[in-house]
């Protein structure tokens, strides 16, 4: 049964494991180039990174032991893995608790005399095994990245792997527990997201707010941050380990009790049924129109991303003053804010906010492609093709609805940016913001087009392939120059094709390249859709 359970988590295990491995490997490999070899270089590196890290506390823990490769990798790679794990825990936890019920798997398992308690234990064990593989890959990547530079004791590495593993399991357990409350997988995903992101953001706030230090221990991300066993002089956070174990066991036990109590496919607490109202009308007219019907079906996804993008725009621009001042205080980091003569705030927004906007819109593109792949695997595509629809029209409708949604999100993000900038007394030129916004559209569409091609060819693998493409493209842009990769390889990154339109105008070569990928990608998707056979 454990083997079957591992199979259920195999894509997450492999995908997130690969991300963890590549992340730790790449950061380790980049350390010498970034930090230098001499004590003086290292000291300067420590000073600048520490100052910068204060401004990046929303994303990274506060660094320690940056004078060593292990300390740097602990901060830069292991420190970002929790945010990655949040996504995996939400997907895996809600899927295990509710998704399998909706697929009628839980019924068949319980019908084969598996008790509810054993089922819960089995799912935790299966995910635990998958999480261990992921954590081990992170450890393996650390060793690979450090090879030839620094020796990392195995016991320290094992301690760090243990810490990451416990965090992953605790997050899964928390999502699995809250998933017992709503009656659907979607409700479980929403609750899980609210819970984990809430705990994560609580820890983010606690990083720079001493008053939150004590209550922050309720967040598993806090005790994960508190551990630094990987770095020289670091210690295994036994309190954190114990809290992680307690969180894990408590969530499993409470989830088991809740699962025993509730009906399958029902909420934990069922509200009294209201008298049914006659609801013969009320269908949205949007469902009758091409493109509009796609957007209507995706409306909640678009709204959720819109809220996220708006929130991030206000947050990132809101902290501009602190970050800019910190960077200006350090000569070595002045260059982060753009070429000499650039308004530093404009440089900050161009680099930081629009950099994050790129990541967010790439994430949205992946989410949209997941919907397309889902339509295929769930038989909705077959249902559409049983109507008089041309296959190329389906691809075209998907492409146009993606364009519309991405344009709306990009515009929203930029409007929020302008408002937030005005609130902190920063003036941005509208033309520049428009350029930067406009370039986000082909940027995100590049990933959507690649995803369309993948979902038309092999829907089951589309998300994994696209996610890997986004990750690889990001790593290529972030670390390629540092690691001295060939220019042609670095220039393959879609993130670099975007250029820096707010500062230096439109990067025309990049725009043509992105548009070419969009045309080729959706064109290939059309051809593949014409030829492919539908399994459902």
């Amino acid at each position, binding site marked *: 049964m454990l083997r079957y359970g591992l199979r259920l988590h195999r894509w997450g295990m492999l995908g997130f494991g690969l991300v963890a491995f590549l992340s730790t490997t790449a950061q380790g490999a980049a350390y010498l180039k970034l930090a230098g070899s001499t004590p003086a270089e290292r000291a300067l590196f420590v000073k600048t990174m520490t100052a910068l890290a204060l401004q990046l506390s929303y994303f990274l823990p506060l660094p320690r032991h940056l004078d060593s490769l292990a300390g740097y990798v602990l901060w830069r790679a292991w420190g970002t893995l929790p945010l990655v794990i949040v996504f995996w825990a939400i997907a895996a936890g809600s899927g295990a608790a509710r998704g399998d019920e909706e697929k009628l798997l839980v019924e068949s398992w319980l019908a084969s005399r598996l008790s509810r308690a054993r089922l819960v234990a089995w799912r935790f064990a299966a995910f635990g095994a998958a999480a261990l593989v992921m954590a081990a890959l992170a450890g393996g990547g650390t060793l690979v990245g450090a090879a030839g530079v620094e020796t990392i004791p195995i016991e320290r590495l094992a301690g760090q792997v243990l810490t990451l593993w416990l965090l992953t399991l605790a997050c899964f357990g928390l999502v699995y527990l809250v998933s017992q409350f709503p009656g659907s997988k979607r409700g479980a995903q929403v609750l899980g997201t609210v819970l984990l992101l809430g705990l994560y953001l609580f820890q983010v706030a606690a990083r720079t707010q001493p008053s939150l230090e004590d209550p922050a221990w309720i967040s598993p991300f806090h005790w994960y941050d508190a551990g630094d066993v990987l770095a020289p002089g670091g210690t295994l956070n036994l309190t954190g380990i114990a809290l992680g174990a307690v969180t894990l066991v408590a969530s499993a036990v409470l989830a088991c009790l809740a699962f025993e109590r509730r009906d399958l496919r029902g909420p934990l607490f069922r509200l009294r049924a209201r008298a049914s109202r006659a609801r013969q009308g009320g*269908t949205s007219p949007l469902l*009758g129109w091409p493109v509009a019907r796609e957007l209507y079906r995706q409306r909640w996804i678009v709204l959720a991303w819109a809220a996220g993008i708006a929130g991030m725009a206000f947050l990132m621009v809101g902290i501009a003053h602190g970050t800019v001042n910190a960077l200006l205080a350090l000569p070595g980091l002045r260059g982060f804010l753009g070429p000499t003569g650039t308004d530093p705030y404009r440089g900050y927004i161009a680099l930081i906010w629009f950099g994050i906007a790129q990541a967010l819109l790439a994430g949205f593109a992946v989410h949209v492609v997941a919907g397309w792949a889902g339509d295929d695997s769930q*038989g909705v595509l077959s249902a559409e093709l049983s109507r*008089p629809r041309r296959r190329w029209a389906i691809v075209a409708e998907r492409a146009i609805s993606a364009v519309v949604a991405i344009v709306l999100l990009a515009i929203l993000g930029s409007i929020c940016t302008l408002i937030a900038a005005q609130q902190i007394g920063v003036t941005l030129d509208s033309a520049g913001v428009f350029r930067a916004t406009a370039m986000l559209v082909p940027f995100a569409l590049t990933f959507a087009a690649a995803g369309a091609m993948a979902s038309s060819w092999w829907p089951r693998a589309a998300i994994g392939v696209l996610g890997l493409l986004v990750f690889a493209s990001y790593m290529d842009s972030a670390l390629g120059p540092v690691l001295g990769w060939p220019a042609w390889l670095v220039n393959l990154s879609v993130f670099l094709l975007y250029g820096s339109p707010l500062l230096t105008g439109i990067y025309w070569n990049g725009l043509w390249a992105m548009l070419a990928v969009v045309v080729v990608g959706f064109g290939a998707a059309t051809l593949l859709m014409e030829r492919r056979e539908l399994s459902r």
Partner: protein
Amino acid sequence: MKVTSAIRTEKLTKDYGSGRGLFDLDLEVAEGEVFGYLGPNGAGKSTTIRLLMGLIHPNRGAAEIFGLDCRRQAVEVKRQLGYVPGEHPDFGGLRGREVVAYLGAMGGGVDQAWVKTLCERLKLDLSQRFRDYSSGNKQKLLLVLAFLHKPPLLILDEPTSGLDPLNQQEFYTMVREARDQGTTVFLSSHILSEVEHVCDRVGIIRAGSLVRVASLAELHDIRLHRVEIEFAGELPLDRIRAAEGVSDVTVEDHSLRCIVRGSFAPLLAVLAGAQVVNLSSHEPTLEETFLEYYAAEPKEPVAC
């Protein structure tokens, strides 16, 4: 080519390898008839339907619906038909009426009065979300979608799956009404009572090959009879076993049981002069005929 066939296939083949698939299907379904397509699991029924629907592509051969090529003129074909798939699609959180609206719009609009009529007949509440429907209600929704545009051809794959007996009867009534209005129905099933209720002709598919097409009456004529004979004296066992059309002879005390295919005359000739106390002939149902058909040449079913 004269268009008198609603469905016509010629050497239609889909080979999945290892003997799996559909092979050289030559089939013709006339306009206005209700054609039952029978076969065990994995025989190729759904593969045939998916080829007709253009969802998969044949390796060789051709399929036409009302003279239109199922692959090259797929969109025009879809305008002529309503379809119930063998598996439920998952429309997630959309309400039933939203599914009807969005798929109905793809077919050229929705007649709300007709939808209301269909839902009342099938007792389907369109205000519920698809994920909250029972299996039977999901099937009813698929039936509503198939009948939505009153198409000249209905292709139905296991259409009564999950329906309670009352709704099954209502479905049969709907099919008869559609036939009376000239609609052609291609109905794939493994439920023989369903076929007996509504079909004019039946095709039997086994291991990817069409083994028999006949009217219900013809199938009744060729089916076997289970005969039980009670003798007062000695049984003419050897002569009975040798009689034409007689098989599966078993004896218990003075009773003999056998199966007779075709004419009774050879058996009666043998029995002349024997001391027969009692003779009964049991006419099997179509199900027994069907099972006998598959038991006659045992072969592993081919998954398609």
